[in-house]
């Protein structure tokens, strides 16, 4: 564990050397990973590292520095380096730290750290990966190859202190199990994956469940074809819907808003989505990946309603973007260990609806069920959306055949308005989550 005193000492030293304010972050982490492929161990990685970062203000000038050398000489050099770069920056009237009254940390056990990730020795971890891969390989004779399976575990700690009197720290743990089978049928070769991710080993899905799900997802892609170019309704499965939620986050985070670089800028209080869309950011949910007792400026995490039944209610802000917009921070400051804080999310999710996904699919005459999106074709400034997709074609409520090498396009504005249903299948597999979503119409480009 890191001595939290190191952070307060760096802050003190910065003030002694001429800073008017300072904030210091320390991060320590240990990572372990075991990768297996075709039933044999391929890679073992086991190591740890530490980093320190400092941000100083000299009046309204800001400078930052970071180092991997946490010795007193290394920390001293970091302080001098931050002060040196502050001297060449420009005065920024909005540069500041949170008010003392805004600082604080959530009480209670947020279940971010569990000792049980250390309960399993290397052999057991390797075995879990082998079992997950085996479950996939033995699921279907068409699964003939594998990109492997891996088990990883992480334990870390984060310390933060600033010159307004905040000092806090928290520990985190996580472990994950994943596998990527490869299936072949004639000339068609496809891969897909599945994974489980948890803060506690006891919450990890079984290797058999992970392998089986990966196998099902892979085999159903075999023999994929293009479809004719057309406009049609599209269902996003929870994995692809999650990436859409990621796009919504980018459109409501404060930096894009104050720069007018988001299609949702200036839309507070307006209907920006259908009634089926309620989007929440909640950094307080115990045991989840978007949870923390305080944000990266020392402000307690909280729950913010972003979109309430289609109406845009709040942006997500840190101190800087809040000041720029004449608002208050929502406790969404995020950064690595250094530099000005950006805006991040807690657990950012779309509230589940009433209907199970099977029922949404059954009620679907014809259209696309998307299971994979690739590429970066999303423009948050304009809302233009065009991404590579793969999935399953649905006819009369049933999966007809797999589809690939197509794109789906629309604007995010229209897609949000066109959400006709949200499924009841909300599940957190990371810090962004969505249930199955049905979008009334998009342009599918194929043959």
């Amino acid at each position: 564990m890191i001595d939290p005193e190191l952070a307060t000492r760096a802050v003190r030293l910065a003030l002694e050397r001429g800073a008017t304010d300072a904030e210091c972050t320390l991060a320590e982490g240990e990572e372990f990973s075991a990768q297996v492929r075709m039933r044999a161990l391929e890679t073992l990685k086991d190591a740890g590292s530490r980093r320190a970062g400092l941000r100083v203000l000299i009046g309204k000038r800001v400078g930052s520095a970071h180092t991997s050398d946490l010795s007193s000489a290394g920390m001293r050099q970091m302080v001098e380096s931050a002060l040196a770069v502050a001297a060449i920056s420009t005065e920024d009237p909005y540069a500041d730290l949170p008010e003392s009254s805004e600082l604080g940390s959530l009480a209670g056990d947020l279940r971010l750290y569990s000792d049980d990730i250390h309960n399993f020795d290397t052999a057991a971890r390797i075995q879990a990966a082998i079992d997950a891969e085996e479950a996939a390989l033995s699921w279907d004779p068409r699964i003939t190859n594998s990109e492997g399976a891996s088990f990883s575990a992480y334990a870390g700690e984060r310390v933060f202190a600033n010159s307004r009197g905040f000092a806090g720290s928290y520990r985190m743990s996580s472990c994950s199990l994943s596998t990527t089978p490869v299936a072949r049928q004639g000339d068609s070769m496809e891969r897909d994956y599945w994974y489980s991710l948890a803060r506690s080993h006891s919450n990890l899905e079984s290797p058999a469940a992970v392998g089986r799900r990966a196998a099902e997802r892979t085999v159903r892609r075999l023999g994929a074809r293009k479809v004719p170019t057309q406009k049609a309704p599209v269902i996003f499965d929870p994995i692809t819907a999650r990436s859409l939620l990621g796009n919504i986050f980018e459109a409501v985070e404060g930096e894009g808003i104050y720069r007018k670089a988001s299609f949702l800028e200036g839309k507070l209080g307006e209907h920006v989505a259908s009634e089926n869309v309620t989007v929440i950011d909640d950094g307080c949910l115990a045991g989840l990946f978007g949870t923390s007792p305080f944000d990266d400026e020392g402000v307690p995490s909280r729950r913010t309603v972003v979109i309430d039944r289609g109406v845009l209610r709040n942006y997500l802000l840190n101190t800087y973007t809040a000041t720029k917009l004449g608002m208050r921070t929502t406790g969404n400051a995020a950064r690595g260990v250094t530099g000005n804080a950006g805006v991040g999310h807690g657990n950012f999710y779309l509230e589940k609806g009433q209907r199970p996904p099977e029922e949404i699919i059954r009620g679907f005459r014809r259209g696309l069920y998307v299971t994979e999106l690739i590429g970066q074709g999303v423009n948050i400034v304009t809302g233009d959306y065009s991404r590579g997709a793969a999935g399953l074609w649905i006819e009369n409520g049933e999966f007809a055949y797999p589809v690939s090498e197509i794109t789906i396009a629309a604007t995010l504005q229209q897609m949000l308005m066109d959400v006709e249903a949200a499924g009841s299948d909300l599940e957190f597999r990371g810090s962004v989550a969505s249930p199955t979503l049905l979008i009334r119409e998009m342009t599918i480009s194929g043959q």
Partner: protein
Amino acid sequence: MPLSDSFFGQKFGITEHDLESYLSEALSAGGDYADLYFEYLATSQLSIDESIVKSAVQGVSLGVGVRVISGERTGYAYSDDLSPEKIRKAARVAACIANGPSKVDKTGFTEVRPRDLYPLVTAPNEASLDERVELVKRADRAARAADHRVFQVQASYLDSLRQVLVATSDGTLSTDRQPLARLGVGVLAREHAANGNSAPQRGYSGGGGRVGLEFFELEHTPEHFAREAVRQAIVQLNAVPAPAGEMTVVLGPGWPGVLLHEAVGHGLEADFNRKKVSAFSDRIGQQVASPLCTVVDDGTIRNRRGSLNVDDEGAPTQENVLIENGVLRGYLYDKLSSRLLRSKTTGSGRRESYQHIPMPRMTNTFMLAGDSDPEDIIRSTPRGLYCANFGGGQVDITSGNFVFSASESYLIEDGHVTRPVRGATLTGNGPEALKYVSMVGHDLKLDEGIGICGKEGQSVPVGVGIPTIKIDRMTVGGTGGD
């Protein structure tokens, strides 16, 4: 350069004797091969936003990675502390992968004497901060002056100097000093009209390489990138929705070479082919592109962003022919895959940092020039899409399906480039897409030096390039408005 005169010899007193003892420790449980990767990375980052230099960051990172290979197995550990006991501990952890007597019999090191592709008297981060901050201030001023419709400008400048030392149980020792600098300008523009402002559009341009600050003084000036970013944003103000469906696509020279990176490059990385999970597996000698296409990956071009004197396993980089006249010729190998596939490393072993295990990666990937006049290529196209600039791309190497996103493209109507269209994603299948290349221009151009390639969570700088080419059939994913 003798080790005692090298960066790690001078600054940390590391000797050949130390390196040998760490490698012995790494091979103490057996194994076929071990290596040590020492890295010292100093970075600076300066950015301007709303004409205010809001962010200035300097940092240092230091560490060593220890790798042991035993058959198909790799053990890896690292330390951010260069004390002998911490390095030995990392070596012992990496050694856990092996069991049995070591097959390595090592005595002494031979120094790899590579090229000098980025000879620098002064690395960018050794220049004064004032000089460097002036670059972003100039970019900001130039972008704002270029057009009254510009209302937001962000410019950022990043540089790094990486000192590396790679010692291997093969007995090679290499050191390198790798500078990297990059300047980027992003703008937002909108029309001002009596009935309110139009929706904003963005433009982005940037460049750099393994260069000193003088790179930004001649043609690659902050003003050049600023004006280019503004031009792209202004073009977009008049853009119509992109078409949807299969059509002829003409790619302009330079950055659109990202097509090659996605469509063929990744699929030819030897790790995927060792595992036979690539759409290109077992296809060496087969026709995978039209005979007009010759594609190379070349890590030896002076001062380019993707170039390296030695790769991150200490092997000299080289020019590798991937596709010659449409025929698949070779893969990109790192040491592990070359060992297992009984080939030679192609100098393609790269890693993000000492915390990462090397794997086969691209350097600068481009298509050689052909004979066609770029204007003839456009004139010969009755209807299609002309793509001048791209954002990023992505590929599924197993199915071979790839996408890349056009950030600046135009309709081609009756052999003329006409209206600009909004962002569209193009999609195709790797081993098929280049078979439809029907014309290749004589105007090969490499990109300006801003590419970053991500693979399995590791990012490395790369370059791409292409002449103007015509692809008779490709799927364009717009919203269909035409």
